[in-house]
């Protein structure tokens, strides 16, 4: 039994940051933008949280700092994509690079070296009442509420309908007086908050440490979860769980079969699961014919 609890704790621990960031991807995707800046925003969130804790000594203010930074970066991304009409994919990669480079610069200038920064404490834990789950952070506890809230927001409110119409049929949004560009700005800002929380959970949820390569593609994985999850909050959360399950299985197998299978191969599992996920999605969408559809939009 202990095994199962440990297993679940591991999945929740690695899955929760992914899920938060996936929510950011879902809302942006609904509003009609491919959000490839998730990786960068997540790094910014993680770095700002740890640096905030070290510098201010307060968890609340550090999370607010992280949210502020992520929202600023999100607005920058929105500005470049919407106003300057840059390619969302390349601009997203640019934000990612900005996150990686910017956090490195920040860490160097604040702490004097690029070594990992550790914080004295992290996100508050849910407490001993939860037995084997007590080491989990409160963000894990809030996560289901957030996913449900996202579903309500997107599928059960007029605002959500308008936001989705901005992505699916901008002319329709415009004809009911909604401004698609503004809708995307709102989506990006909400996404910024989620990325900050996701980054905070990653860095301060269990380890309380920020290292240069700690995000390691999780943002991109979250983006894949958006697609695999059918652009739906619950689907996206399940997809993110699936990817983290693959990762946890990899680590478990390493413990048991480490001698037989090289551990780098096992580390590949979440990435392979991601490829598998988007492959399945592509197949369900009717294969190569629809792939051409995405590209043709560039002709305008």
């Amino acid at each position, binding site marked *: 039994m202990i095994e199962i609890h440990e297993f679940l704790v591991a999945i929740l621990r690695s899955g929760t940051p992914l899920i938060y960031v996936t929510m950011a991807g879902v809302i942006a995707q609904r509003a009609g933008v491919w959000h490839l800046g998730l990786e960068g925003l997540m790094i910014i969130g993680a770095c700002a949280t740890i640096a905030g804790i070290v510098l201010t000594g307060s968890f609340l203010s550090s999370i607010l700092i992280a949210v502020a930074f992520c929202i600023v970066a999100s607005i920058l991304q929105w500005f470049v994509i919407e106003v300057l009409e840059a390619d969302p994919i390349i601009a997203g990669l640019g934000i990612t690079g900005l996150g990686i480079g910017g956090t490195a610069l920040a860490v160097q200038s604040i702490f004097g070296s690029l070594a990992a920064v550790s914080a004295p404490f992290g996100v508050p834990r849910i407490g001993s009442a939860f037995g084997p789950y007590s080491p989990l952070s409160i963000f894990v506890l809030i996560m289901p509420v957030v996913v449900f809230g996202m579903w*309500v927001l997107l599928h*059960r*409110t*007029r*605002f959500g*309908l*308008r936001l*989705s*119409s901005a992505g*699916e*049929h901008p*002319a*329709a949004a*415009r*004809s*009911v*007086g909604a401004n698609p560009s503004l809708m995307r700005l709102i989506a990006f800002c909400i996404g910024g908050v989620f990325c900050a929380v996701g980054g905070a959970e990653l860095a301060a949820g269990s380890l309380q440490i920020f290292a240069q390569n700690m995000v390691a593609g999780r943002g991109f994985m979250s983006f894949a979860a958006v697609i695999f999850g059918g652009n739906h909050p619950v689907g996206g959360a399940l997809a993110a769980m699936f990817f983290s399950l693959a990762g946890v299985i990899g680590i478990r197998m390493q413990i048991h079969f480490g001698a037989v299978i090289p551990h780098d191969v096992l580390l590949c599992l979440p990435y392979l699961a991601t490829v598998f996920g988007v492959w399945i999605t592509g197949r369900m969408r009717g294969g190569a*014919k629809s792939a051409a559809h995405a590209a*043709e939009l*560039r*002709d*305008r």
Partner: protein
Amino acid sequence: MATSSSRPSALSCRNIRVAFGEVTALAGISVDFPTGGIHAVVGQNGAGKTTFARVAAGLVKPDAGELSINGRNLRFGSVASARKAGVELVHQNFALPPSFTVAEAIEFSLDGEIGLFSRRQLLERCREYLNSLGMDIDPRRRIRELPIELQQAVEIARALVTKATVLILDEPTAVLPPTSIESLFDRIRTLRDNGVTVILILHKIREVWAVADTVSVLRNSRLVAGPIAREETDPDRIGNLIMGVGNHDSISHNNGKSPTRAAEPLSGARRETATAQPVSLDTVLEMKEVCTSVRTDEPCLNRISFEVRSGEIVGIAGVEGNGQLTLVQVLSDFVAVSSGEIDLCGAQVTGLDLAHRRSQGLRIIPFDRNREGLSLTSELWKNWSVRDLVLRPPLGLVNPSKLRARCAESLAEWGVRYNSTTQNAGSLSGGNAQKLILAREVDNTARLIVAAQPTRGLDIGATAFVWSTMRKARKRGCGVLLISSDLDELFDISQRVLVMLSGRIVSEFAPPFDIAKTGRAMTGSRN
């Protein structure tokens, strides 16, 4: 005019000017539509009708002028302000996200705040609302699953949900089968009786006479008449106003979109095809019991059999979405044939890809010239030479300057107006873009030309050009398969017209064509 002095006009505008770059869309329009009644606005393509509708709805911001609704001045370029004042626009191609359910599509039109709802609430509210309009539509169905006339009904319901007092419908009849037009008109009359002022953008005069109380005419971005009460005028006069008196006679003889033709009453319009040249016996296309089974938005093809002979124009009539798109896709090998056979010039091509079929003389003028026919962001010469390039070995060397020169030669021959062969195709006007496609597709080695809606969105001159091109091709011995939703066009230039309904060919007509009979065949009604 008919403005009543006691009540403010429902919609009144002064000196509205709109220019898109160098193109003037509206050159100072001033018009008053009295409250109540059905007001038609007519004019040719490009006369500025749609722009006018979009200005009133706040979607286009004019450069100058004033607009007031029920006496209240409107802030320009703001949809929210227009809707608040009570103006709603029903778009020609419907502004409804296809993945939404009917209930969602109506809900998202409502104004304001976050608007939390539960599914049951939403459905109940929507059902009640639709019932109050006398529409029987399941609010749970998705927009993309609805037939086109129901989509239009939903769009009208969506527009009225904010208690609009002025409803503008942009070419509402263009997408409908003839039999649904009457029920649309009934619906519009009911709205009028409930006190809604309806402004109808139309281009067929017979429809104006069927429904409208007043008529206004736009020509060349100006208002040339109106609103005139229908009783005070007659179709011929309006026709002359639309065309501009004088050049009317010179164009109408080869143009089915000409107003006199369109003005004929709905029933009993008979006409002969102008050309009586004999059709040869060689078939260029033979479809034998062709079926498809790939799921698309359209019904699958169901045992389609027909032939196109050399020197013949065969028209395919039908309400859009009855398999015409699939037919073109089958001919161009985008959709696989599940059973049956396609023969091109006597040779079986069923399993062969489009490159092979094209090398045997198949040419396609696709439905959507900006998406399927041209790459708007590529240079003219590339767009022109692509037909030749796909047949060359991929690594074979080509000489771009030679291609550009040949392209320039060909474009000059076809009368395409352009500056340089290196300009992007997107900078051409609609008519010139279609000429570029014709210059590419209609060459001496063409044997069968599949033309899908080749004149959609073109002005009269370009339309006439396209038609004369087809006639010439036919005289040279090409076969032409013309797919169109415009019966006037089909009757004017085809030797035979086949009607498609739900993926089958349901009837075949030969001249003299009867618009009423064909219309009934298109909708499958018995009588």
